């Protein structure tokens, strides 16, 4: 008989009521966070959930871990600073597609490239929800909205390809409609050393009711994860955005600052002497 688990999912849930709309995919992602942390047996105080601005970026306050709800687009920078300063913590950055790929796009590239041991979960609903329905970098070109009547006419950003090309060590896609699979993906991402990127398709039922159809469109990727970036690139460039699973798993060593040399501040003074 195995021992009772140290933690259960509800140990990670706070008593703050989410601002999300009924039916929002982000509720499932919040549940998946709890399940994943419990599965990993992480003490809530050893986890930090870091976010920027947007509907999904509200997630830290809904967890019972440490959290930081920062400014728009800078979650990965906050998370990088925290992880480098406190490498023993489990640091998870979370947010939406506008926060991560538009205003935070540069940090996304460099977080992938820097490969600090972080997990980044993007709840992608292809819309700015908090500001009531504007197109994001992942929005389809013909999606009509007040801000871009008739659609943007722009090709959507492919975050998984960008992550791979920028050096992310783990690239996966999940669907919020299956919280257990999301949790499993988050567990795998946290376990994998280096920068892990998980895109979770998380429908916005308010501004993108068409996304209710995603549950029929998603499918398990027909092939297993690869460690070959060229093969992964081909797979990601040719899929339709609905293949789920771990799509790339690399073996780059995570970035860690070099160890200190044990000097005292006074030891630095010699070079100043006249």
């Amino acid at each position, binding site marked *: 008989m195995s021992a009772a688990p140290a933690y259960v999912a509800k140990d990670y849930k706070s008593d703050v009521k989410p601002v999300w709309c009924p039916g929002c995919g982000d509720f499932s992602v919040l549940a998946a966070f709890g399940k994943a942390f419990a599965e990993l047996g992480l003490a809530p105080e050893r986890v930090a959930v870091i976010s920027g601005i947007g509907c999904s970026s509200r997630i830290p306050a809904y967890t019972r871990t440490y959290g930081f709800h920062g400014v728009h687009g800078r979650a990965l920078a906050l998370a990088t600073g925290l992880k480098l300063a406190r490498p023993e913590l489990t640091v998870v950055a979370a947010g939406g597609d506008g926060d991560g790929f538009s205003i935070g796009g540069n940090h996304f590239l460099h977080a992938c490239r820097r490969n600090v041991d972080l997990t980044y979960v993007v709840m992608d609903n292809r819309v700015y929800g908090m500001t009531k329905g504007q197109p994001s970098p992942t929005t389809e070109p013909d999606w009509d909205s007040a801000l871009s009547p008739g659609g943007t006419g722009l090709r959507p950003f492919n975050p998984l390809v960008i992550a791979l090309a920028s050096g992310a060590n783990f690239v996966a896609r999940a669907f919020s409609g299956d919280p257990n699979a999301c949790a499993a993906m988050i567990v795998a991402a946290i376990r994998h050393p280096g920068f892990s990127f998980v895109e979770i398709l998380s429908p916005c039922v308010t501004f993108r009711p068409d996304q209710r159809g995603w549950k029929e469109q998603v499918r398990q990727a027909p092939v297993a994860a690869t460690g070959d970036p060229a093969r992964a690139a081909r797979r990601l460039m040719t899929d339709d955005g609905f293949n789920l699973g771990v799509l790339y798993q690399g073996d780059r060593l995570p970035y860690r600052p070099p160890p200190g040399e044990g000097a005292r501040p006074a030891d630095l003074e010699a070079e*100043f*002497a006249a």
Partner: protein
Amino acid sequence: MARHSISLALTGSGGAGVMTAGNMLLDAAAASGCHGLMTRSAGPQIRGGEAAALLRLADFPIDSHDDRLDLAIAVDWENVQRFAAELALDKQSAIVADPAAGEMPAAIAAKGARLLAVPLKQIAKSCNGRPNMVALGVAMAALGLDEGFGLKAIDKTLEGRDAKTIEASYAAFRAGLAAGAALDLDCRLARGQTSHPSHRWVSSGNHAAGLGAIRGGIRFVAAYPITPASEVLEWLAPALRRVGGTLVQAEDELASINMAIGASFGGVPALTATSGPGLSLMLESIGLAVASETPVVVIDVMRGGPSTGIPTKSEQADLAIAIHGLHGDAPHLVVAPLSVADCLFTTQWAVHLAESTQAPAIVLSDQFLGQARAVFERPADIAFAGGRRIETAPGAGYARYALTADGVSPMTLPGTPGGQYTADGLEHDARGTPSSRADDHTAQMAKRARKLDGFDYGRHWAEIDGEGEIAVLSWGSTAGAVREAVARARAQGLHVRLITPRLLLPIQPARMAAALEGVRRVLVVEQSEGAQFHRYLRAHYDLPKSVEVMARTGALPFRPGEILGRIAAGGAS
């Protein structure tokens, strides 16, 4: 006749090595017991272009250049007209130049200085050395500095280079000494009243700020390169590694400020350094540090603005953005060092203030302070009482933003069981839960203001000196020239008061009122076309009726003589 202060310039095209020679001269003078200051004038060229090392050596502590140059040594004349305005030569000055470099440019010749010919290039060639080392020798001979100090300075700079290079430098330096001794040129420096040079340091303000940060406890730095702040970061990179800290190069300033905030949230005191353009980018996140009550220090080494401005020249025109740049009512700290040496103390103090009040602190240094190298007494290692209030054993009702009497709430660090909270840029209640309620907003706003307004900043808030009905108010690097002007005015029998605040935010009305007690006339001196410091004083403090303002753009530093002129002119009226 030996003099108490000698000013000289070493000029040459970029790559001629005049900065190297200037630094060696400053090192040699410092080792021999002199005080000194060296600034660099360089164009925007990465390599090549024009360059001048501007030095002042004295037998008393100095923080500013003098009114004029005694000597200029020109290794060549290339592009010298671009900084002719910075070479305060006159009929009493001497110019040493190589006849092989061609005719003296008209802009220099017009100043009427006496020309002395020394074949620097030919002398250098004869001993396989470089003309800049010959120039170093000429300067040392003119100043009456001993050969041994020059050789030691060469050793220090060329440490690790091959014996042939070092020998050639020695030879060129000695040949320069001989050539200088043969000249009809007397720039001997008086000595004697100096303290023992072993207590002296030679450093730039940027390096001093780095050490101040480490003394203050900074162990995490996020860095994005920018002129003229990069030396703070480049000095800290290996230094932090030695003491067990971390420096990470960020992808931009938006990232560097947020990385620093993230590290500080984790309990590691954190800093970033930048200049005006970078500060502009960081402002939103400095506001995040205010709202989330996360200590962080931002050094702004100011340069000419607006926009990209003049990266290599000093200006004091980021005062307004540092004080007013954050959106919302966002109480924070702004401090400014008052000399090259003070970059160390003020940065260390800023860390202490930020950590103690859980607020962001902006340190307004500038290009002059940051990139000048100066000789100064080793700043004492001050242990400030206080620091970050950390809750290590939070009880069941722990509230991160509890409304305490002094406004500072003990913070838990990630890893502490039972202390979990979410730091937030959204307004929140005492527990940190986002709130749009008016009562929470009012209470938290008052708390954030209270913790800064109620903090005891002590005597460090300003450097105040002297009595009298005339007061000169200044700040930052300009304080150096003002100090000297005030000293000269007193030597003329004028009673002049000096008031130079180090703490610019939060404002200190009671302390300023006490400092201005009995003052009838004020002279404000600052390097800002828009008179930002004057406007700041007007907005926050009661000034006497008679206020004069010397406010102008940066690029050219104030000279003590022109400030003295204004003090004396008003005093006579």
